[in-house]
């Protein structure tokens, strides 16, 4: 099977996966109790009106009438055309709310991902070259620490230490400052802790994968040959070990890191009060704004579908040994 056929199949599969996920979400939404409906019925009953009529009027307004498949098609069509519903609590389209929140999320996730990737690979390679030394054990411990520490709690502890006790960084995130002067020093100062917290959880897995992958090549015959020919350690590291290591690593980074980043950033935003996607979603959950909850959940899901697709394609492109028939 060729690369083209493989790519086509993976793209088609990503489409199917997205479609199935959207369908399942629709079914879940359809069968879940609707808090808004319950509220309206309660209000109608309390004021002496007929709860049934109120419920029907609500269904009419929301487009909840008609047979199931018709509503299903409409739901899919709306999602595809960018009409993600109307957020009642924010009085704006869901997509607009998401687009306003997105820059705040990117503001700290992008530096965190970049830092943790570079540092994670560097530390992982160093560990692999110095296996079973004290530094290697220290690095392994840091990895365990990063995987195990609840990032929302870590954020609270850091806030307590550096904002409340030492006063080095502001306790509250200033959204106005972040919006008007995103590149200022003051903004960088308030983003240090979120980047650090997100980075620790992301660096751990990068580090462990990088170490495991690099270990396969550290003792490989071609590395020995390079060393015998007098190549410097730096050259061996960058040319002979880093390059083959990057191939599997690049794919792992896309797929696995994505899940960590998406969920960690949600909690980080809640702790630090950053008005990004996570906070938006939390507000929607607290105020039972189902359309917005759905929208903010679908963003990470679609990102994940895309990430998985990119992971498969990157693997096929970078590693010519891959067997296309395999899963």
């Amino acid at each position, binding site marked *: 099977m060729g690369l083209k056929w493989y790519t086509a199949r993976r793209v088609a599969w990503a489409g199917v996966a997205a479609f199935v996920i959207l369908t399942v979400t629709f079914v*879940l939404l359809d069968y879940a109790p609707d808090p808004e409906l319950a509220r309206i019925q309660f209000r109608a009953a309390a004021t002496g009106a007929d709860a049934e009529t109120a419920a029907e009027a609500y269904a009419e307004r929301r487009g909840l009438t008609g047979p199931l498949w018709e509503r299903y098609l409409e739901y899919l069509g709306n999602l595809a055309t960018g009409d993600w519903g109307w957020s009642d609590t924010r009085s704006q389209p869901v997509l607009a709310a998401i687009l306003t929140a997105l820059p705040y999320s990117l503001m700290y996730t992008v530096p965190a991902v970049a830092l943790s990737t570079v540092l994670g690979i560097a530390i992982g390679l160093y560990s692999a070259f110095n296996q079973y030394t004290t530094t290697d054990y220290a690095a392994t411990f840091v990895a365990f620490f990063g995987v195990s520490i609840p990032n929302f*709690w870590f954020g609270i502890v850091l806030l307590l230490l550096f904002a409340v006790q030492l006063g080095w960084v502001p306790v509250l995130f200033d959204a106005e400052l972040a919006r008007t002067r995103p590149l200022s020093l003051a903004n960088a100062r308030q983003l240090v802790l979120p980047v650090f917290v997100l980075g620790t959880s992301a660096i751990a897995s990068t580090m462990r994968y990088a170490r495991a992958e690099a270990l396969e090549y550290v003792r490989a015959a071609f590395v020995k040959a390079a060393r015998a020919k007098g190549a410097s350690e730096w050259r061996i590291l960058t040319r002979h070990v880093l390059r083959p290591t990057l191939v599997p690593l690049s794919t792992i980074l896309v797929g696995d890191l994505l899940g960590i980043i998406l969920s960690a950033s949600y909690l980080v935003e809640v702790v630090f009060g950053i008005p990004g996607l996570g906070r938006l979603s939390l507000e929607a959950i607290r105020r039972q704004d189902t359309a917005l909850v759905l929208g903010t959940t679908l963003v990470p899901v679609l990102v994940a579908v895309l990430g998985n697709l990119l992971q498969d394609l990157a693997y096929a492109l970078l590693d010519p040994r891959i067997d296309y028939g395999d899963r």
Partner: protein
Amino acid sequence: MIGAEDSPGTGTDDSESADGGEPPSERFEDVDWASIDADGGGRSPLRLAALVAAGSYGLAVASDRLVAGGDPTIDVAFGGVAFVWDATAVDWLFVATLSVLAFALVPLARNRRLVAYYWRRFRRHRPAVLSLAYLLVIFLLGTVGTLFLDPPALDVAAAYQPPVFLSVDASIPTECVGPVVEGRCQGTWRYPLGTTADGKGLLALAIFGMRVSMQVGLIATLISITIATAVGATAAYAGGWIDEALMRYVDIQQTFPTFFLFLFLAYLYGGSLFVLIVIFGVTGWGGIARIVRSEALQRSEETYVAAARSAGASGPFVVWRHVVPNVSNSIVTAATLNIPVLILSEAALSFIGLGNVTLPSWGQTIAAGRGDLATAWWVSTVPGLFLFATILAFNFLGNALRDALDPRQEVGR
């Protein structure tokens, strides 16, 4: 009660299949086939014990649901100490989980030599041995300890007490329980870890939080590994379109980021502990199923499977008797590494307020202390330390187990 009666039954088969034991060294013609055939009836003492356990469990649940109703399940007093326990649905699930675990340990207890071998391998990881000790303490405090302790109670007069040996400005607590020295309120042994804004003792809250975490981690993981083993082993053994369909489904389930799946479902169906456990258990098994499948694929190629099949064993029998016991090492490792993920997820969900607010979960307490960071730092910090230590311990334990039980798997991946 939802299918809880089935669980001990699963345990029976589980332990039955794993207790292969040592075959006596005798020649083929010495084998007493008549006795083996009689044995095949499946009335081993173990199976009988499991049946009795399942039966009495079913009766207990039924009596709690039908007879006791809203009254406490157990209400006895001996020697002046009253023992009252009103079992909830989650408690019953937990009891079932623990009995299944107990039955799963029987084959291990029978095979001392193997246990000693694994223990020697496991012992080399000193952090893991420490972790095991810590987790046993947490487990016992959370399960047995909470039965004899009073749940933390509201006591506004005792709000914001600092932990023992520490002090805080006397203006912060409403009333200082301990002595006030130079305008600073000292912590007392009555509240060794301090109190919250409601005057609840943090030590008691932490201990009750242990129960919540253990319930979430153990019950949901048991549900997960049951489904994952069934799906993974079936997919590997059956192959063909069954394999394709099952693993494609796992693909899709895995694509949905776990945290958001939990979040979305908890939002839609409410975040009571029971619902959370069911959500975690029923949707979080994809990764384990993949591990089981890939291991089972290798086992299915082994000669003993071919031998069993040529002797006329049916598909389900081969899977249950030969494939599953031989991938159990990977299952144990994967299960151990699954527990901390679930504990963390539960803590995160209750931290953002999706859990049951009346439940003394660690995440709940951390969230409650967030507003008082400047004045009462201990409220958020103490439960977080327990949470962190527990997750770290499970991760150490899982890695050491992988090393000890699973020499095939590469460490660090």
